[in-house]
């Protein structure tokens, strides 16, 4: 079943059209990779799916589990299972990571009519997940992403993904700023979440990540559109030939 359907999406930012009729369908259980040159609109797409303000959708639609995603507030989307691992996670001084994680998880559960986690259950879960992602406990006492290295911020995004157990995970350049070991750990974390009910959209510039997180489908984005889709071998092709052939289009 289609989990995410983006149909002929046109998006403007400050009077300028960035996405010019983008179509993308992601089914449950699939991993899709999106590759494309800088400025082609990859982050814009991920932001519009997550509900970031400042983007004007002028045409097209986004369906998530058959529902109109664009009608929902960002927090509703999160509660329904949309998760975006940001390319640039923000720092939130004064909000302890642990407090943030618990507040967010319980807000999502509450919105779904589920009971809130008890403190011991929550702590146990966080401890398990952070251990598997090699995130030290004292990092969780600090402000959200405050003083985290680039790699630590990315791992913190994966940590949240593992905790919230969303059904659609969008990873925007999760690999940027990660060293080889950190990349493997993060990718293992992502792979552990692969399941028949969950889909992933992995935005990346580098084929290397796709050696760890092997995609079912690879899309090439250029100038606000998906210009080519194929199997995982498309990523290798791109690595060899670059984007020039698509830029011309």
């Amino acid at each position, binding site marked *: 079943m289609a989990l995410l359907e983006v149909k002929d999406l046109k998006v403007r930012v400050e009077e300028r059209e960035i996405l010019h009729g983008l179509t993308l369908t992601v089914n449950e259980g699939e991993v899709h990779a999106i590759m494309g040159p800088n400025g082609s609109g990859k982050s814009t797409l991920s932001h519009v799916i997550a*509900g970031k303000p400042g983007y004007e959708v002028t045409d097209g639609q986004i369906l998530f589990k058959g529902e109109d995603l664009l009608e929902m507030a*960002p*927090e509703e989307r999160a509660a329904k299972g949309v998760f975006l691992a940001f390319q640039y996670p923000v720092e939130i*001084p004064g909000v302890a990571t642990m407090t*943030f994680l618990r507040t*967010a998880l319980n807000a*999502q559960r509450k919105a779904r009519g589920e009971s809130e986690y008890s403190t011991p259950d929550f702590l146990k879960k966080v401890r398990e997940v952070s251990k598997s992602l090699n995130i030290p406990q004292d990092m969780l006492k600090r402000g959200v992403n405050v003083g985290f290295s680039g790699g630590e911020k990315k791992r913190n995004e994966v940590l949240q993904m593992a905790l919230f157990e969303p059904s659609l995970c969008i990873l925007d350049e999760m690999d940027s700023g990660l060293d080889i070991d950190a990349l493997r750990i993060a990718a293992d974390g992502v792979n552990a979440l692969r399941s028949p009910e969950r889909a992933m959209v992995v935005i990346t510039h580098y084929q290397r990540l796709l050696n760890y997180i092997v995609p079912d489908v690879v899309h090439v984005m250029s100038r606000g559109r998906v210009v080519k889709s194929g199997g995982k071998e498309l990523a290798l092709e791109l690595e060899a030939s670059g984007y020039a052939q698509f830029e011309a289009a």
Partner: protein
Amino acid sequence: MNVAVAKTGSGRAVSDLFASAEGRLPGSPGVTAVRREAFETYERLGLPHRRIEEWKYTDLRALMGEVLPLAATPDAAALKRAVEAVKAHAIAGARKLVLVDGVFAADLSDVKPLVAEASFKTLRETLARDAGLLKTASTDAVIALNAALATDGVVLSIADGAQLSAPIQIIHVATAASASAFTRSQVTVGKGARATLVESFVAAGAAAYQVNDAVIISVGDDADVAHIRLMDDAPDAVNITSQFVTVGANTKLNFFNMTTGAAVSRLQGFITLAGEGTELSVNGVNLLKKTEHGDTTLVVDHAVPNCVSREIFRAVIDDRAHSVFQGRIIVRPDAQKTDGKMMTRALLLSDEAEADNKPELEIFADDVSCGHGATAGALDDSLLFYLKARGLPEKQAQALLIQAFVGEAIEQIADDGLREHVIGIAERWLERRQ
């Protein structure tokens, strides 16, 4: 604007009040003479208004209109409400001193355990002998009015070297609607003493009342004092408080104020560092909504060399509320090596919220390090979006960011229990927004 009319209007209201209240005001004949003189000073000045420089952002003539008559002696029902209010606002383990509608309530207070560690009297008791406590070297009209009409207060003295085992909490409870309470207290902390003083202002079913409080604090050398003031009055109340603080040498004084109530409030603190090597930390949080007006005015006077003062002030302003911070640091000619800094930040939660900030440095010494900084702005949209994208509804996302914002001031409270208590009050304020 018919300021003259307003002045006569409010002056006359008090004039009548003073005549009718006189019989109820405690004190010897000498005290009565001092009161009358103070009242005449007030009558000459009238309520402060915007053309008085110190009050330019807080025009009491416009905001307060008139001074309400003195509250009547609370009846049994009022006292019962006061008991409940005290219960709700008491700090666990603290020794309570309760003033109900401006009069000390022994039955609601913990005098017995307190006097084992500190000496205690009521203002009423001291005024039976002399008027010393009604005299202050201030020319401010609200302070003169306080001297004229103060009905009671606490007079505390903590001996040299005393290490108090529990905080002392002065709780001002208002039970009478549309009436005013005038209180004046004195706290003396001896050399080498260690103490925690908490002041709470709360309502017990009363609305639209007025509080005018004055506190005279003197801290000796080598002392360590935490002073926390929690103004949580009814949303339509007025609270005008003046504090005069003198600090000795090598002392640590950590003051914190939080304003979460009152339609109109002003805390004016005049702190003089009179002994070298002292560290002063003055911190405040204003949480204002609707049309509330909250003013914090602080004068820190470095009268001697080698002292450090730090001021952190945070205002969260919603709806059409108005927050004022005036901070003056004075460095006297002899006060070399003074290190004085103040930082104030305002968070505007609505387009109509207003923040006024007036920092002033008056530096007469040349080898000093002083500075101030101020910011005002809205919540950061990118942070809000991050939180919402993680499932937090708008108000909850705001609440988390607001808590972080005020946390910078609240975390200056060293005691874990008191800090948690203060965080609890801030959280309840935020919950009421949701």
